[in-house]
């Protein structure tokens, strides 16, 4: 029956669409309303198109907003620099240990994120062996500290999201056709050139996917700044958390959430346009042939 057949895709889509409607679209709508409310906790908040919430929020918290993106950017870059060689090594030299090595990458994620960050607090405290070694090597001054610094926060973010970088990278590098590299060397490309002209472009979809999976949660993170940093490292997530739960200033918190979301969306679109579309579409086109 043609009618029934036409209904099939919609029925298949329905659970996902309903999910999005109830757990994404509706909350987003209510949040948007709250962001435009005016008032205080005692008198109550009422809706009156208070767009000034947005401008006030930006002027009060642009520092934390920029800091969030800066930390997320550095952490993503570090995760790429650490993750790429690791994913490459596992994919090309892992042999029969491949799955075991991948398991080791995923294993820490089986502990909750909060507990892992708390563990870092212990690892990095002022009198810990790790910090003593860094002091001995002169990386950290004798009276200096690691915990409660910018470095600790960025290191924490990098560590916590590293697996999200490694896995997509591994997935693309693992499918890399060795024949292409042989062809490159037949055409007199040295190893460096072969890497730059063959491996890297083919790995681009993995890099784009990994950097998105790392950058997006990193920009909204507040646990690392809270546990490993000080108020001088607080990110926009810390502000939103405190505006919602401590000061009960819901409109500002909601406005900041929207600003964060919009800013991430803009950055992601820009990044995908620069690096992604060609890589993602290029691979699909190649596979289609």
């Amino acid at each position, binding site marked *: 029956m043609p009618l029934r057949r036409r209904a099939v895709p919609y029925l298949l889509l329905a659970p996902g669409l309903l999910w999005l409607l109830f757990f994404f679209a509706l909350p987003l709508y209510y949040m948007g309303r709250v962001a435009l409310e005016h008032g205080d906790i005692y008198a109550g908040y009422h809706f009156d198109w208070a767009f000034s919430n947005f401008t006030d929020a930006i002027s009060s918290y642009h520092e934390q907003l920029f800091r969030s993106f800066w930390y997320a950017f550095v952490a993503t870059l570090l995760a790429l620099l650490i993750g790429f060689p690791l994913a490459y090594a596992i994919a090309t030299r892992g042999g029969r240990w491949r799955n075991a090595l991948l398991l080791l990458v995923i294993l820490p994620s089986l502990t909750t994120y909060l507990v892992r960050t708390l563990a870092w607090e212990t690892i990095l405290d002022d009198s810990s062996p790790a910090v003593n070694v860094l002091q001995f090597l002169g990386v950290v001054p004798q009276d200096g500290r690691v915990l409660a610094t910018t470095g600790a926060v960025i290191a924490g973010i990098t560590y916590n999201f590293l697996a999200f970088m490694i896995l997509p990278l591994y997935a693309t590098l693992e499918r890399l056709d060795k024949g292409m590299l042989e062809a490159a060397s037949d055409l007199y490309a040295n190893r460096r050139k072969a890497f730059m002209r063959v491996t890297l472009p083919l790995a681009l979809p993995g890099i784009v996917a990994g950097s998105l999976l790392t950058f997006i949660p990193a920009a909204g993170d507040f646990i690392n700044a809270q546990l490993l940093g000080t108020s*001088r490292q607080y990110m926009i997530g810390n502000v939103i958390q405190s505006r919602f739960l*401590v000061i009960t200033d819901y409109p500002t918190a909601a406005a900041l959430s929207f600003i964060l979301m919009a800013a991430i969306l803009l950055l992601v679109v820009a990044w995908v346009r620069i690096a992604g579309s060609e890589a993602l579409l290029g691979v699909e086109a190649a596979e289609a042939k």
Partner: protein
Amino acid sequence: MIRLGYVQKLDKSVLPNIQKNLLPAFRKADFDLTRDYSAPWQGIFAGLIYRKDKIAEPMSVNDIFDPKLKGKVTMLTESRDTVGLTMLGMGKDPSKATTEDINAALDKIDKANRDGQIRRFTGNDYTKEITRGDTWLIYGWSGDAVQLQADDPNIRFFFPPEGFTLSSDNMQIPVGAPHAYTAELMMNYVYDPEVQAKIAKAVNYVTPVKGVKEVLQKENPKLAENELIFPSDKLLENAHIFKKLTPKEEQELDSRFEQVIGA
């Protein structure tokens, strides 16, 4: 919560122990001037906690701003304690705080934070850092200090000569509670000195109940002499309760405080 109408009035006829045994220092709170809606569970002093293996005994609440202790101090995320203690160091009384006093104290805290003097603003979790020795002198709470000191004799509570703040955790009954009477019986029960003595032994905070010291004197004289649990009248003269703020003042203080502490 009282202001928002979430809490119901207590029936004082069910609470004879509280009428009889509530210590004068706790008979009013900034949020409940007549104690019609709340009964203190335990009192809390906020003052200085320090490590005597790292620094000499403090002289003043202002020692927390000593540049020699840069990065080795923490302050509390509880605005009234942190602002109150800082105000006392500036010679102002938090129970008579004016907007200018509060803002001056916030400016001072803000500057110290920007200079890196203050390592962090913390809740109860300051115990981790001072136990590890990451911090040496902090704004902290009395009951925590008693317990920290029991685990590590190097950790001490210090009552600043300029004064310190007193607040309390409170028992309240939400509007619509089906068993308000039972809850009131419970409140009355913990105001029996014999019962309160057991609580005081376990939690080590300032007891708000009269006659507990006498109960403990026989059984645990050392604890009974601890001024952190049983403050003398003379000590209490130096304890300050933060002024009752109007809703507007309160939101201004909290909002500015959160901005100063970075969020």
